[in-house]
């Protein structure tokens, strides 16, 4: 028995030495590449977006490294999975900042994640460029917090005004019960309400809910002519599907987030005719050469057309690269911040990017719909 004890202890010591020597060599590895943190929902309910973002960033890295990287040093992305959850994101970002000591993090995709990790980045002077987060609160999240996607104030107000102008008078809002859903529903409300147009109800639903029959029955009884679903593609798709099953015939309005193949897959034919805004300069039919070149390169590498997730993740990552190129070997968040604040106009694949004093951008809004199972521009 005693010998067994000694044996186990010796093995333990040997294993520890091996592990320690592994980390030692990691230190040497570090100087060979410049590492940028990336947080994406690689698994979870919105994993579709995470994968798209990763594709875009991989393309960006390929382009950057084939052009010599940053002053001859290759760039590398450290991916962390936030699972679409703020709690997991906090752990992921803490690791990137305290263990990996990255100067900048690209992400998150959803506002809840961005808002939860912004304080950590801000405190440690690490740049956070949110790719597609739209909650208005992010405007005030910090000096090191930027985003390449406009605030919901843009999307929500444009859609609210649009609905009002189209003559809809009785609206029901169904919003996902998180930072994003609650705030965009509020903005829509503010812009829709007038003497003629009223909000009959503003109901919230939980992310874990998949059965919306009760909330939809309530909506149906109020007899609205328009229903606004403010959530992500899965829940919005289920909402419109179950609404049609219940015989609700109102016009459905969606959010930009519904422009995803999964939405059409889940909602099927019930998705026909839904109208939603798109607040970005990225357009597959754009005549802009920079945008077209990106689309071609992306198509060549991945065999499918990029969408708004890919284009924004690409731009966000490219911005970090551009900033570091101009920072004369000082790879810190503060240096990146100096660049971003003073860069003027950046011509990206999502159009013109110019950060205002809060790190926000302004983009044109257009309206789209789903026709014959495809996302089409809305004809006036």
């Amino acid at each position: 028995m005693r010998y067994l004890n000694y044996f186990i202890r010796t093995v333990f010591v040997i294993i520890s030495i091996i592990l320690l020597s592994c980390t030692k060599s990691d230190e040497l590895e570090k100087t060979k590449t410049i590492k940028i943190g990336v947080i994406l929902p690689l698994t979870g309910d919105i994993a579709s977006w995470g994968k798209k973002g990763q594709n875009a960033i991989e393309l960006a890295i390929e382009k950057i490294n084939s052009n010599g990287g940053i002053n001859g040093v290759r760039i590398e992305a450290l991916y962390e999975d936030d699972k679409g959850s703020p709690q997991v994101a906090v752990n992921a970002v803490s690791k990137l900042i305290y263990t990996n000591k990255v100067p900048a993090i690209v992400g998150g995709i959803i506002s809840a994640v961005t808002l939860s990790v912004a304080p950590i980045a801000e405190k440690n002077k690490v740049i956070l460029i949110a790719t597609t987060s739209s909650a208005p609160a992010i405007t005030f999240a910090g000096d090191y917090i930027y985003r390449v996607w406009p605030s919901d104030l843009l999307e929500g107000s444009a859609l609210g005004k649009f609905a009002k102008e189209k003559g809809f008078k009785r609206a029901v809002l169904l919003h996902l019960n998180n930072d994003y859903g609650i705030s965009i529903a509020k903005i829509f409300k503010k812009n829709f309400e007038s003497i003629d147009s009223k909000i009959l109800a503003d109901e919230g639903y939980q992310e874990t809910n998949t059965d919306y029959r009760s909330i939809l029955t309530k909506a149906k009884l109020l007899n609205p002519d328009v229903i606004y679903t403010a959530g992500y593609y899965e829940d919005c798709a289920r909402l419109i599907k179950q609404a049609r099953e219940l015989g609700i015939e109102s016009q459905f309005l969606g959010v930009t987030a519904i422009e995803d193949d999964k939405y059409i897959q889940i909602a099927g034919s019930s998705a026909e005719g839904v109208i939603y805004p798109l607040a970005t300069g990225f357009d597959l039919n754009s005549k802009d050469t920079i945008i077209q070149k990106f689309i071609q390169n992306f198509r060549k590498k991945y065999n499918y057309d990029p969408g708004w997730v890919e284009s924004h993740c690409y731009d966000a990552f490219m911005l970090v690269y551009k900033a570091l190129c101009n920072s004369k070997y000082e790879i810190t968040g503060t240096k990146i911040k100096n660049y971003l604040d003073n860069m003027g106009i950046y011509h990206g694949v999502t159009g013109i990017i110019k950060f205002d004093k809060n790190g926000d951008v302004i983009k044109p809004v257009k309206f789209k719909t789903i026709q014959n199972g495809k996302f089409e521009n809305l004809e006036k």
Partner: protein
Amino acid sequence: MIQLLVNSVITFGLIIIVTISFSFIYKVTKFFHFAHAVVFTSGAYFTFLFKVWLGFPLFIAIPLAVACSTILGCAMDLTVYRTLRKRKATSLVLLLASLGLNVVIQNVISMVLGDDTKSIRTGDVQVGIEIFGAYITPTQIGIIITSIVLVILTAIFLKYAKFGKAMRAVSNNPELALISGIDSERTILYTFALGSALAGIAGILVALDVDMTPTMGMNALMMGVVAMIIGGVNSITGIVFGSLLLALAQNFGVWKISSQWQDAIAFIILFLFLLIKPEGFLGKKIKKVSV
């Protein structure tokens, strides 16, 4: 109004099978088999595997999937629970083990098949049939009928079949059952088999209505546990009442209170019952007699 009633019946149909199957596993083995949630999920996902990956038609995929869920449930008992029972583990230990099983297997499903919503629905979105002003789709009608038939069959089975009586004997008094010649380990295994088969079917029914995600099991099970406790563990009629009450409360509750509280309503009812009538709707207070 009628729509709310119809919705309640649909919700009832969706939770009753999970609840009943969970309750008799609980009665016979005396611990909370949380991994029941993942057996429920596996029913749907096995169907997906057979239908979408292997291309079998639904009427072959479903029985195969139910068989696989049954095997999964039995495997859990044979490998984990039986070993723990041999070592005289307490129900707390078994509960923790079942939580662990749940997490591991759910994550295996996520890893292999992905976290996004998968569908086994055939055909397109159907507008419901209108009955007395309420809408209900043919699929939902099918779900309700299947659930009710299964409940009745299970009740008859438990009351009259030899195995049903054996189950009741083991749940009542394991030592006496053993002395009377009932192999309690075998009975427990068969209980798991039956319970898991029912859970698999329940998972498939839910997936036919609202598609599947890897986490769907825990939600359904939580509702099932609440229904079981408020209905009283000891009788199927009690559980039926409990599930009906829960379904009605959730659907009608949302009418007056904001729908964010839908899940909270279930747990508030649970609290109230635990405070006022812990043995449940139709339960009787059991008095312990010591010799």
